């Protein structure tokens, strides 16, 4: 294809597929047809539609994947009825939830009760824009990408807090309070764990972080501090997304359903969807930062092997890495018992935070001494 041949002479050798060219072609084509304002309007509508459909698709796939993974872990088959191997189960569920009556309890704070699902969805939707799926496929490429992502992703918990508070249900309220405690704690660890890679990469921009891993992923290149950071990031981000074993805000054996006890129909579905999208976002960030994002796997001097790897499209690399991390998170959830609220805080403040601080210093030291692979 034209795209590939163009790239090979100008860009460095390892990038075969550059979607930046595709997007700029579309941009040129659009601007040749209409004036600048309309071009950008059409582009934005395009971006919105593409990401919306992507968002919905990922949500459906992840719910299905979770049900199958947990079923296999539990010696079950999982959904098998709707479609072959039950692949249309989530679509059926979605339609069912859409057709359910929306209930609001009598004493609820109706405005906040309705606002809460907006917040969780907005938070996850804003975050998904920063993820670099391939070279050139990234809607929002800020130079403070990591910071932006942290700030946006912590918005979601606000929705959970509001949902729990507005329901006027005692279980929901306790669930909301718990999620407050959780966000207060684990925000720090996510930030500090990502900081380790920022130190190595020397940039907070996601596209540059990916570029810096062209010669090798940070989890190899940065060895000990990055591995520690990855473990901490996995723990803390699982907590951030309110997933088991940190699902204290839901805790169905203690608080029946926690913050979403009173939600029904599509409103409940949005909380559900947001949880899975957050999982996807966290996983793709982990893939981007620690496993090189869409960068193919390269081994030192095996030129033939590296070249072969280059031909696998970046989408495949990105999604397989993301799926691996998502699988890890599912594996955690279906293995471990839930933590208690004080243990949750102990884990953060007495274990993750001190280790993290030491780890940041260690990473800085290693960068200083140049003991990492380039």
């Amino acid at each position, binding site marked *: 294809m034209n795209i590939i041949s163009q790239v090979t002479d100008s860009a460095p050798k390892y990038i075969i597929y550059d979607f930046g060219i595709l997007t700029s072609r579309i941009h040129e084509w659009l601007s040749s047809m209409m004036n600048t304002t309309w071009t950008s309007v059409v582009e934005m509508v395009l971006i919105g539609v593409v990401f919306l459909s992507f968002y919905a698709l990922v949500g459906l796939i992840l719910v299905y994947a979770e049900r199958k993974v*947990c079923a296999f*872990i*539990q*010696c*079950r088959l999982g959904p098998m009825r709707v479609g072959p191997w039950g692949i249309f189960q989530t679509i059926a569920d979605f339609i069912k939830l859409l057709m359910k009556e929306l209930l609001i309890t009598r004493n609820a704070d109706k405005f906040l009760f309705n606002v809460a699902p907006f917040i969780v969805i907005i938070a996850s939707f804003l975050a998904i824009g920063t993820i670099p799926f391939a070279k050139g496929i990234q809607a929002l490429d800020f130079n403070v990408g990591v910071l932006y992502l942290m700030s946006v992703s912590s918005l979601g918990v606000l929705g959970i807090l509001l949902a729990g508070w507005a329901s006027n249900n*005692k*279980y929901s309220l*306790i669930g909301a*309070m*718990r999620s407050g405690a959780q966000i207060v704690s684990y925000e720090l660890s996510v930030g500090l764990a990502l900081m380790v890679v920022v130190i190595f990469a020397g940039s907070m921009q996601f596209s540059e972080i990916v570029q810096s891993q062209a010669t090798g992923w940070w989890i190899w290149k940065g060895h000990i501090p990055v591995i520690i950071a990855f473990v901490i990031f996995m723990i803390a981000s699982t907590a951030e997304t309110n997933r*088991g*074993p940190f*699902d204290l805000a839901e*805790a*169905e*054996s*203690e*608080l*029946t359903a926690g913050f979403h006890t009173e939600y029904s129909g599509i409103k409940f579905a949005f909380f559900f969807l947001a949880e899975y999208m957050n999982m996807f976002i966290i996983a793709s960030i982990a893939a981007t930062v620690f496993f090189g994002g869409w960068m193919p796997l390269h081994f030192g001097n095996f030129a033939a092997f590296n070249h072969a790897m280059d031909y696998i499209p970046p989408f495949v690399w990105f999604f397989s890495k993301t799926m691996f991390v998502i699988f890890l998170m599912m594996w955690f959830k*279906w*293995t*471990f*018992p*839930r*933590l*208690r*609220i*004080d*243990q949750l805080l102990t884990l953060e403040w007495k274990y993750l935070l001190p280790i993290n601080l030491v780890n940041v210093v260690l990473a800085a030291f290693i960068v200083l001494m140049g003991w990492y692979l380039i």
Partner: protein
Amino acid sequence: MIEAITGIKDSEQEYFINMGPQHPSTHGVLRLVVNLEGEIVKSLVPHCGYIHRGIEKMCEKDTYQQVIHLTDRLDYLSAHINNEAVCLLVENALEVEVSDRIKYIRTIMAELNRIASHQLWWAAFGMDMGALTTFFYGLRDREYILNIFEQTTGGRLLQSYNRPGGLMNDIHPDFVKKIKEFIVHFRKKLPEYDELLTGNVIFHNRTRNIGTLTRENAINYGVTGPSGRASNFACDVRKKYPYSAYDKVDFKEILFTEGDSLARYQVRVAEMWESMKILEQLVDGIPEGPFMMKMKPVIKLPVGEYYQRVEAARGEFGVYVISTGEKNPYRVKFRSPGLANLSTLNHLSPNVKIADLVAIMGSLDLVIPDIDR
């Protein structure tokens, strides 16, 4: 602000929350009215009776054979052991000596039932703690036992297999083979239980030093069974007053001294091993003999009062019968282990968190129909 709305002073506001009757972790329809301070339980009042069926009253109208099927429905997870208690009571009252075959089969069935009960408890306890996978592993292994039950007795959960004076049917020809298969299977799977929960650091921290019951309190509250033995209270009726074939087998009474939720957990897991040992000793040597002794079609107990104790999966199960010489008992009382175990919840719950309350309830292994009767 709230003071202005409600007229209640901030310091006097009480936060009451109903756990149950429709709550996932009460395993039935128990209702706990919990007074909370934030996450911490200040006090707790259990309300029972949501599944009260008046079984004791119903027994007064039934013959002794008909009482059996009601005992199934007390602690449905140790249905077989409850049946056995009534049968032993009638046999002792009429001074009927049952054959060794009956004794052996009863003991095997009781131990299978105990394992099945503990498996379900383990499964549900893990689920209470948030580890949902344990539920399926526990039920998967329990299925083997239920199949053995079904093949011989025709019932999976409620068997009504024991009859005063013997058994309903003889064992199925495959009975021994299937038990041996089960033992081979379960000896492989039981270590997984330990790997999944017992050693897990989260589980350990959630249960250690939670709901500690001292030996004095265990006796004082009448807590029996695994929960009592976790507090070093040697309350095993199988050892104290051996019945059926328990005097012929060699097994350990599991005793722990800690008395916390973890100890209660460990006692039950260890008891599964012990029960398997009992099964192994008995299953090969089931003697020949009749499976039903000769009994009159209408059983009338001599005038008097009878008490029979057996060790059910949750503790000491007792049947107290006053007979006036009629074919119906005059008064039947079932000493349910559940009610005594529940009464400690009051004592154990203050100053624990909600999550701990769930852990304590799970470790006490409450079965609500047993409490309500």
